[in-house]
């Protein structure tokens, strides 16, 4: 606040036209001056300690609102990084097919067989599917052993 602004506020103060907020502003401006004329000294005295205290209270509170603590900033940064990491991980898992390694192994197993196996045991009632599965298991015990072992190794 310039000297001119202060003088204008003082004139309005003496006319009783200033608001409490302007008076607090004036008290703070006068407090920050080291040397001042008697007129200003008198007004500073008239404004009183309570006005100055209230002005300082408001200043501290506004500084707190506009300036978050270092701890708060650190927490915000950490939580932002964690959120980005989690989102990235989610999309990575979405693109990664879980059956891919199994499919490769299946392929290897199938290469040992004389002819490619068509899809089976996928249609019919649950009982028919179960019966079909058991028939295939009895017919090709080695394949199922290998599958079981692969499943165990994957776990």
């Amino acid at each position: 606040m310039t000297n001119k602004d202060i003088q204008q506020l003082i004139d309005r103060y003496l006319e009783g036209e200033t608001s409490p907020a302007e008076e607090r502003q004036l008290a703070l401006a006068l407090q920050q001056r080291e040397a001042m004329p008697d007129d200003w000294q008198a007004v500073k005295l008239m404004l009183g300690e309570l006005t100055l205290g209230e002005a300082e209270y408001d200043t501290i509170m506004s500084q707190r609102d506009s300036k978050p603590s270092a701890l708060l900033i650190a927490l915000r940064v950490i939580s932002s990084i964690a959120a980005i990491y989690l989102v990235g991980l989610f999309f990575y898992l979405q693109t990664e097919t879980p059956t891919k390694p199994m499919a490769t192994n299946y392929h290897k197993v199938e290469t040992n067989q004389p002819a490619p196996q068509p899809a089976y045991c996928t249609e019919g009632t649950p009982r028919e599917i179960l019966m079909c599965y058991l028939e295939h298991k009895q017919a090709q015990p080695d394949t199922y052993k290998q599958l079981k072992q692969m499943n165990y190794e994957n776990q």
Partner: protein
Amino acid sequence: MLKVTLNFFGSQDDAEDAAQEAMLQLWHYCEHIDAERNVEALAVRVAKNCCVSMYRKQQRHTSDVNIDTRPLRQMESDESPQQQLEAKDLQRMLTEVVAQLKPRERQLFEMRQTDGLSTEEIAKQTGIPKASVTVMVSTARKKVFTELKRRMKQ
């Protein structure tokens, strides 16, 4: 008062200490309090004042300062015993000058200076028209201002 201090400190212990100090400070203003005055407004101002005083003390004991309080700390540390004595003399002078005002002028002057009320609030509380409040406050302030200047030059 506790609400104000709690809002400032955030900690229950500090807030209670400040509120207790504010109650003691408020006691010094008891002679200014009457039925027409807004005690709540005064109590809030005193509580805010106590918060700032306690905050300054805490800042002097801690090096971890997040908020720029240089003007406050400068003001505290630079005040020599002689300056404190001068400040007390000036305060006494103001009290004497205000005591010389007419009762109504004094009341309105203190409602603005001590309670921190606006012209509208004073008009509402006292029933005096707003324009008259402005004129009376202005008259009181000019009287105090002139007398203070005269005494300071002596």
